[in-house]
């Protein structure tokens, strides 16, 4: 990957440079976060001309390494005000890597009010006016179909929906998946940054692209085989995720009393089986038609946690129908209908909003009296208003913190204004430390301590006790920052957490591709350096340790059934980043 592309939307200038020296050894999150910290003014307004948006494939993307097709997107977040790295599946990452593109940067902002499409091919980068057909309320499904028809079925597409055009803080960037459906770089409002730069879509045409060069092909193939075996032989990454999707977590979190419900006032519900992964699997199987229990979000995925969820007639509704979305609408908002939740998931993908942020905002809006508790039809209607956007649509699209403020609530589940997802920090204490301290704002994927606390993969900690949690949250965040830099799906963790040879194979693949001799110590150092870069940006943006705290209500509202409160002291929380 030897090209570093900069598109300046202020001047219309396009530069195709050699990769700057300091970024040659980086990929994915390490690259996007280093770049944002180097070039974005930390105090800039995220929607102003000084923010920059960067897309970067991971170190292993574009190779035959299983599950290496994740793309990192970075900028200063309009939701949190912090640095943001958000990663996604789809075909974009592998195409960028095969085209030799280390990174694509969009900077500046045009003075006129038109939207544009950036088209990147092997020998050209062009800025074109966006076709009117995909503007002004056109959903992402139709827009992707239109652009695919216009530019060819194999093109990669990154697009913002109506929410991104309106620069709402929950706007995501959607990516075409192998079948023309949608994957999302969901969290932190990066779609609003793209919308602020008046870029409706980026099209990648990889016609003429070669293969990614591998320094030592034999070694690479051997390591990839060991790695694939580690993933396939683990019951979670090999079978469980494919069968039930991530939604299998509803029942285990519910049983453990860690399923935040009715705006974080209960840890367990009675209607869990209406929204569980077991029910989703049975429903898809029974309905048939377009339904698929198992589906991969990018080529080369062997875990296949995604699925196609069909309606009663067997017609596709949505894919990538994740636990966190289903939890937020099903348990936190109390909507007892998986079909309505599926239509809401589709609507959020189509409008281009983060389905975690907006779904938690729906639950908060119910507590605030904007919507009736548990009313799925009302929630779906309100979500669709984000595309217009009506005042209610703008409020929901503003995210959970905005909803909490306009409703006058103290019980607003956010950290750094990003909604807390699907695991209650009072009864899954390790994940609370990640929510509090990650540079991203509340984000379970930044250090998934649920694994050792509840799932007992890669660790065994008592979820109700503080013992060992600080060290665990630290090591999980460091490891995750490294994995996010490789282009690997985070779920490879389940396959390699308890498999030293699987973990070594991941390092061996990087070494074989680049002709390096990294050790596991180097990988830890990479993770640490990424987190330090991100913390540095946040510090310069005005964030202090006082922002690394959970909302106060967790300290004094005990969560049934275990009646736990959040009891880490500020000094203990600050220990997580003592490295």
């Amino acid at each position, binding site marked *: 990957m030897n090209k570093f592309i900069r598109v300046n939307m202020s001047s219309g200038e396009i530069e195709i440079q050699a990769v700057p020296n300091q970024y040659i050894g980086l990929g994915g999150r390490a690259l996007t976060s280093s770049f944002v910290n180097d070039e974005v003014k930390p105090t800039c307004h995220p929607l102003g001309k000084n923010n920059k948006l960067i897309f970067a494939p991971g170190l292993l993307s574009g190779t035959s390494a299983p599950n290496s097709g994740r793309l990192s997107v970075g900028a200063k977040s309009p939701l949190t005000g912090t640095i943001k790295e958000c990663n996604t599946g789809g075909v974009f990452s592998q195409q960028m890597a095969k085209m030799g593109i280390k990174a694509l940067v969009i900077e500046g902002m045009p003075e006129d009010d038109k939207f544009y499409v950036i088209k990147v091919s092997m020998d050209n980068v062009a800025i074109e006016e966006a076709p009117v057909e995909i503007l002004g309320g056109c959903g992402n499904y139709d827009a992707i179909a239109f652009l695919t028809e216009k530019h060819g079925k194999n093109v990669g597409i990154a697009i913002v929906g109506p929410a991104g055009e309106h620069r709402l803080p929950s706007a995501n960037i959607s990516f075409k998946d192998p079948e023309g459906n949608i994957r999302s770089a969901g969290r932190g409002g990066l779609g609003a940054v793209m919308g602020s730069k008046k870029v409706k879509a980026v099209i990648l045409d990889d016609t003429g692209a070669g293969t990614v060069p591998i320094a030592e092909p034999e070694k690479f193939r051997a390591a990839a085989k060991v790695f694939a075996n580690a993933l396939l032989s683990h019951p979670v990454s090999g079978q*469980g995720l494919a069968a039930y999707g*991530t939604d299998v*977590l509803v029942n285990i979190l519910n049983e453990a009393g860690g399923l935040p419900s009715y705006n974080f006032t209960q840890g367990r519900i009675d209607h869990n089986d209406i929204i569980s992964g077991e029910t989703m699997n049975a429903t898809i199987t029974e309905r048939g038609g377009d339904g698929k229990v198992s589906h991969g979000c990018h080529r080369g995925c062997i875990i296949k*946690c995604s699925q196609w969820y069909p309606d009663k007639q067997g017609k596709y509704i949505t894919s990538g129908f994740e*636990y966190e979305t289903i939890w937020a609408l099903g348990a936190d908002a109390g909507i007892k209908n998986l079909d309505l939740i599926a239509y809401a998931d589709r609507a959020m993908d189509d409008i281009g909003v983060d389905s975690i942020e907006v779904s938690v905002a729906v639950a908060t809006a119910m507590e605030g009296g904007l919507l009736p508790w548990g009313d799925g039809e009302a929630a779906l209607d309100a979500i669709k208003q984000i595309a217009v956007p009506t005042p209610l649509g703008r409020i929901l699209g503003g995210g959970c913190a905005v909803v909490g403020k306009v409703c006058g609530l103290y019980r607003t589940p956010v950290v750094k204004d990003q909604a807390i997802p699907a695991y209650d920090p009072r009864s899954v204490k390790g994940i609370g430390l990640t929510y509090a301290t990650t540079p991203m704002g509340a984000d379970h994927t930044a250090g998934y301590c*649920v694994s050792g606390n509840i*799932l007992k993969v890669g660790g065994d900690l008592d979820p109700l006790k503080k013992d060992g949690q600080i060290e665990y949250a630290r090591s999980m965040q460091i490891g995750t920052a490294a994995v996010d830099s490789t282009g690997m799906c985070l779920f490879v963790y389940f396959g390699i957490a308890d498999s030293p040879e699987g973990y070594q194979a991941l390092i061996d693949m990087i070494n074989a591709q680049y002709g390096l001799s990294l050790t596991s110590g180097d990988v830890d150092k990479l993770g640490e350096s990424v987190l330090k870069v991100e913390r540095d940006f946040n510090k310069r943006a005005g964030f202090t340790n006082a922002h690394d705290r959970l909302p106060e209500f967790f300290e004094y509202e005990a969560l049934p*059934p275990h009646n736990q409160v959040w009891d880490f002291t500020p000094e203990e929380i600050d220990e997580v980043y003592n490295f």
Partner: protein
Amino acid sequence: MKIKVKLFATLREKREKEMDLEIHETTTPGDILDLLGIPQSEVAIIMINGRHSKLNASLTENDTLAFFPAVGGG
């Protein structure tokens, strides 16, 4: 004494997902797996009243005992 037993994910295949059992005071979660014909190797997580537990744990009247295979997500 009476307890409630819950099964999840693959453990539900061809079995009831929830049942009330009348057991002896010395019966352990491991004994109940034997009774239900579930190989211990298929069970990764045991919870009693929402707390992680072991195959040889003691059970008391009205406990809820839950068995899970290896599961993950995120």
